[in-house]
């Protein structure tokens, strides 16, 4: 996908690799990658791609409110996917909303990846009581549905900071979602670390007196990252869905910066008056992102699994 590689050698090597071959020969993976890329591109460059700025109150015109999509009888060419109750262009709101959804999704995956990989590495490498404690915490967290854990942390965050600023509200949300996700990483990394730490290169490093922390980070960590990569891809989709669910329930992102979940929640009120497009298009966008990322994750898992080659 990246056509401007830093050096021709690296690009040639990439095009020659097994993973790239498996990508080329899987139409599903290519389709998913194209859709995911389009969604991410439109969200990242929302201010340039979208036809209007949905946050610019001056450009809103109430007489344009609740216009149906362009292909319907009363639709207008100016608003391809119609407008919402305040005359906002749905297509633009979609791009801006997806931007916030993706931001929260990626941020919470990054946080849970760091926490999970760190604790998993510690658990597997140190062992003993530390290991037992961390794994018991994992067991307890895994026995509850993640949405419940996220809701609870979110609720506690709301109680702790009743008059939170917008950035703090985002922080609470990201922490709530990432604290439900780290368990998966911790268990995966712990498993691989247990295998790696008895291998000869680790023993050799120990013998020549490398500090344990350095062994953990420089020697073991790079060797356990493969499965983590697959997990992270799938977790991005899960995090985006969790964020949308929380925002739909009204406890997610602050209403001033609506994500896809918020758009669906707001559009839900218009469902009964027949304005289905206000809620269905954000829903479709959400499903499209989650499904394409999931398919990519599935493909990556198979491509990186040597037993399936």
């Amino acid at each position, binding site marked *: 996908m990246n056509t401007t590689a830093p050096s021709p050698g690296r690009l040639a090597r990439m095009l020659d690799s097994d993973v790239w071959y498996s990508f080329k020969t899987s139409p599903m993976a290519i389709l998913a990658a194209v859709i995911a890329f389009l969604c991410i591109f439109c969200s990242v460059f929302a201010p340039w791609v979208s036809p209007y700025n949905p946050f610019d109150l001056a450009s809103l015109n109430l007489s344009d409110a609740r216009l149906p999509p362009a292909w319907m009888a009363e639709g207008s060419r100016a608003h391809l996917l119609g407008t919402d109750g305040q005359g906002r262009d749905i297509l633009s709101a979609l791009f801006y909303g997806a931007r916030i959804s993706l931001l929260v999704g990626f941020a919470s995956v990054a946080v849970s990846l760091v926490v999970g990989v760190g604790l998993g590495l510690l658990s597997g490498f140190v062992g003993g009581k530390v290991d037992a404690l961390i794994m018991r915490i994992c067991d*307890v967290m895994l*026995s*509850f*549905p993640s*949405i*419940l854990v996220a*809701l*609870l942390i*979110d*609720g*506690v965050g*709301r*109680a*702790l900071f*009743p008059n939170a600023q917008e950035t703090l509200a985002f922080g609470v949300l990201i922490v709530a979602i990432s604290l439900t996700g780290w368990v998966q990483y911790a268990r995966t990394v712990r498993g691989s670390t247990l295998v790696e730490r008895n291998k000869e290169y680790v023993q050799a490093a120990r013998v020549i007196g490398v500090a344990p922390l350095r062994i953990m980070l420089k020697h073991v960590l790079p060797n356990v990252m493969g499965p983590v990569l697959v997990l992270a891809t799938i977790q991005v*989709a899960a995090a985006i*869905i969790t964020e*949308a*669910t929380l925002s*739909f*329930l*009204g*406890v997610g992102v602050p209403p001033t910066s609506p994500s896809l979940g918020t758009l*669906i929640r707001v559009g*839900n009120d218009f*469902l*009964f008056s*027949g304005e*289905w497009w206000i*809620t*269905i298009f954000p*829903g479709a966008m*959400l*499903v499209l992102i*989650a*499904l394409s990322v*999931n398919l990519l994750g599935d493909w990556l898992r198979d491509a990186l699994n040597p037993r399936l080659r």
Partner: protein
Amino acid sequence: MFAFILRRLGQAVAVMLTVAFIAFMLFQYVGDPVTSMLGQDATQEQRDDLRRDLGLDQPFPLQFARFVGNAAQGEFGLSLRQGRKVSVLIAERFPATLELALAAAVIALTVGIPLGVYAALRRGGFGSQLVMTLSLLGVSLPTFLIGILLILFFSVTLKWLPSFGRGDVVTFGNWSTGLLTVDGWKHLILPAITLSVFQLALIMRLVRAEMLEVLRTDYIKFARARGLQNSSVYFGHALKNTLVPVITITGLQLGSLIAFAIITETVFQWPGMGFLFIQAVQFADIPVMAAYLCLIALIFVVVNLSVDLLYFAVDPRLRIEKSAAGH
């Protein structure tokens, strides 16, 4: 066997105590209970009195023990937002959630198992591939979106079914049920389907995978060799053996059905516990959140424990291995 049960019981108690401790910490450190009960402009003397009455001046372990004692009796104090007893609030809402979860479980089982068997027997056929693709969609669609789509189709466009509330209910003492009125049934259909979709897809895929596994085994070949009819081989021999893991998963999922009901209840304005919990999260109503947390944990622990024991009773292999290892 006895040691196994004892160990499981120990784990269950440990989980419950952990959850109770989290709930206790919420009470202690998130929001000051004295301020929330007396209001901002109470005198210091009033505060101290209430602090003593509530036992907040006692040592930490003693307070925790008292909290656990109260929680065991279902006592979690007053809701900060509604000013009513939390135990009463939850008791009012519990029947609605239980009915919804049970209805969803029944749908998931009665539709999921036959579809799974079908997809396994007609493997590779058009129908079974369609079923598999639909199930993938069912797993990846967020619950609230399924609810919205159902409302759009059946309530708004076709106008067949109502989209919010429980409809007419019949009350017996503390229990209210919507299962005795036609209106109640009509209101139940859409939420129950919404809640069941994920579990349905899960059960279907599980049954299919197990069925494919079992159909390859020797005793199925022998059953065929004996000249038994297809239906007898499939349902009398094969399906029976796939049901053990299905029972386990269904049991374990009953807890998450009650938890996931939060989303369904919000979409359909269903007056259950989940709806109560969401309002509590929105308004940072700690007593309600803590009580809900403890109740859900209790349901999970009890369900997991009974599934473990049931598994032990259903699968004789486990018993033999365990007792053999013990000798």
